[in-house]
């Protein structure tokens, strides 16, 4: 009781919690789950974009895409490290991903089927991720907050890069414009779903808000994202695939149409078009390369043994 109150007081005073600080079990558990989920999302998120590295239309775009996917791997690394400070190993977390126990962002269960999808993923998916992540830079847990600062910087670069791909397409041929519009049509609703269920239906929100793991509600973040994105779409000359989308002068933001939550839950539960392919790809990468990790371990042990032997002489 007293401990919880003191902990909450630290949080309220905007002091950072560090790995060795005492913390409530629930706080630790929530953070591990969230950070791991975030790390897994970065790793799985490499797949839809990775699908276009061999086919990128120019060398400049190929290099930028490869670098972007590499950044995502890097984010995965920081995040697994941040989770490890809470006493859970990367192996364990990866095991949870591969067994299907841990979740990752459902957006990556949609396929990247045209080059415009690469632009759209940067523009909308990274854009939505940034909205979620900027407040996390002030998260009460120090290692997560610090990882997020670095991640956000790179994500916003990716977001601009994605938007720039869209701009190029929208200034291009009719085919390119159609490709851009089609990608927006397919990714817009899923990107709104990235913010999670409406506040009224969100389970973990209140406690996370109190602990300052979360600083805005799902609906608040979604609203910010819509308000930021609609003018960008207008600038591109693209049409939002939502006939109910319109400016609401009173609230100073856009109203939007009904989100298809059935689809959201279907994909979360594993029934998106790519869920199976994503897990198959991750498991295959893991299983096919077990021998490599074993070799690295065996070599490290041999080397350590040799060094000990030399030191003992």
């Amino acid at each position, binding site marked *: 009781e007293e401990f919880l109150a003191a902990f909450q007081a630290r949080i309220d005073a905007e002091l950072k919690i560090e790995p060795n600080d005492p913390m409530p079990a629930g706080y630790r558990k929530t953070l591990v789950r969230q950070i791991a989920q975030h790390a897994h999302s970065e790793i799985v998120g*490499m797949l839809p974009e990775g699908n276009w590295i*061999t086919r990128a239309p120019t*060398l400049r775009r190929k290099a930028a895409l490869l670098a972007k996917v590499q950044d995502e791997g890097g984010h995965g690394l920081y995040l697994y490290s941040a989770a490890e400070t809470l006493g859970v190993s990367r192996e364990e977390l990866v095991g949870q991903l591969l067994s299907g126990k841990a979740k990752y962002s459902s957006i990556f269960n949609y396929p990247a089927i045209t080059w415009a999808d690469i632009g759209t993923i940067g523009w909308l998916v990274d854009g939505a991720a940034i909205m979620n992540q900027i407040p996390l830079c002030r998260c009460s847990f120090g290692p997560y907050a610090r990882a997020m600062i670095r991640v956000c910087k790179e994500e916003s670069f990716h977001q601009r890069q994605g938007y720039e791909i869209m701009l190029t397409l929208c200034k291009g041929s009719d085919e390119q414009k159609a490709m851009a519009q089609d990608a927006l049509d397919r990714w817009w609703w899923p990107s709104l779903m990235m913010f999670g269920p409406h506040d009224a239906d969100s389970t973990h929100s209140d406690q996370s808000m109190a602990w300052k793991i979360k600083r805005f509600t799902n609906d608040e973040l979604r609203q910010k994202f819509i308000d930021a994105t609609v003018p960008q779409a207008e600038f591109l000359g693209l049409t939002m695939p939502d006939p109910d989308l319109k400016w609401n002068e009173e609230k100073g933001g856009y109203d939007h149409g009904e989100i298809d939550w059935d689809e959201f839950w279907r994909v979360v539960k594993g029934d998106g078009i790519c869920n199976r392919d994503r897990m198959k790809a991750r498991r295959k990468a893991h299983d096919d390369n077990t021998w490599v990790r074993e070799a690295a371990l065996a*070599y490290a042990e041999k080397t350590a043994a040799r060094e000990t032997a030399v030191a003992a002489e």
Partner: protein
Amino acid sequence: MPDADLKPETLFKYVLRLADDQLILGQRLGEWCGHAPTLEEELALANIGLDLLGQARSLYSYAGEIEGKGQGEDDLAFLRPEREYLNALLVEQPNGDFAVTIVRQVFHAAFMVPFWRTMTASSDETLAAIAAKSLKEVEYHLRHSSEWLIRLGDGTEESHRRSQDALEELWGYASELFEMDALADEMLDCGIAVDAAALKAEWDATVNAVLERASLTRPMDSWSQSGGRSGRHSEHLGHILSELQYMQRTYPGLSW
């Protein structure tokens, strides 16, 4: 600046050979994306791939300038038929398991380190500058891939077997790297090119040292393949190109 009697076509072709090597190997490394043995290695393979793509871009741009027909890096990278790609056969070989990828990289990097080092003294300033930048990159590639080969060779029984198999599988493709022909000789006489044949001793020393530390056996020089420098490829290249060129072939002449 190139010699007075040097034909621009000769230099153009020489630079294309170099560019194609780096592009095709970079493309192969890109195929690993999302499938590497560890997250750290995911980043390392992407890193090496990025370096190679960067080198290819500088080389293609320069080749386009030499040719003087307004072809840019993308025209040269994406719009030639298979028979005009001039890369060595080594770099188009499939990724195979991780051991094959690592052996291919060791072979390539152990050649490119002395190659770029020598090229820094080229009378062609552009090539000399590309060489200086690339040298640092391939030194890292060599270090990274050698360390892996040592780990794999001296790791478990399985990893030893796989890396020895990979060595045998790729050994005969290494010799093409050292081949000189009339075109390369002409470039050498002008002080532009590197005498690739003369780099064999250093390559041997580098590779032998790695193999020794890795407890691996140097394969016999019982076979060798070449043809890439004159565009005679294995059947693998065509499949690489069908993906590489897809967008440019499908939507010609657009900006992306």
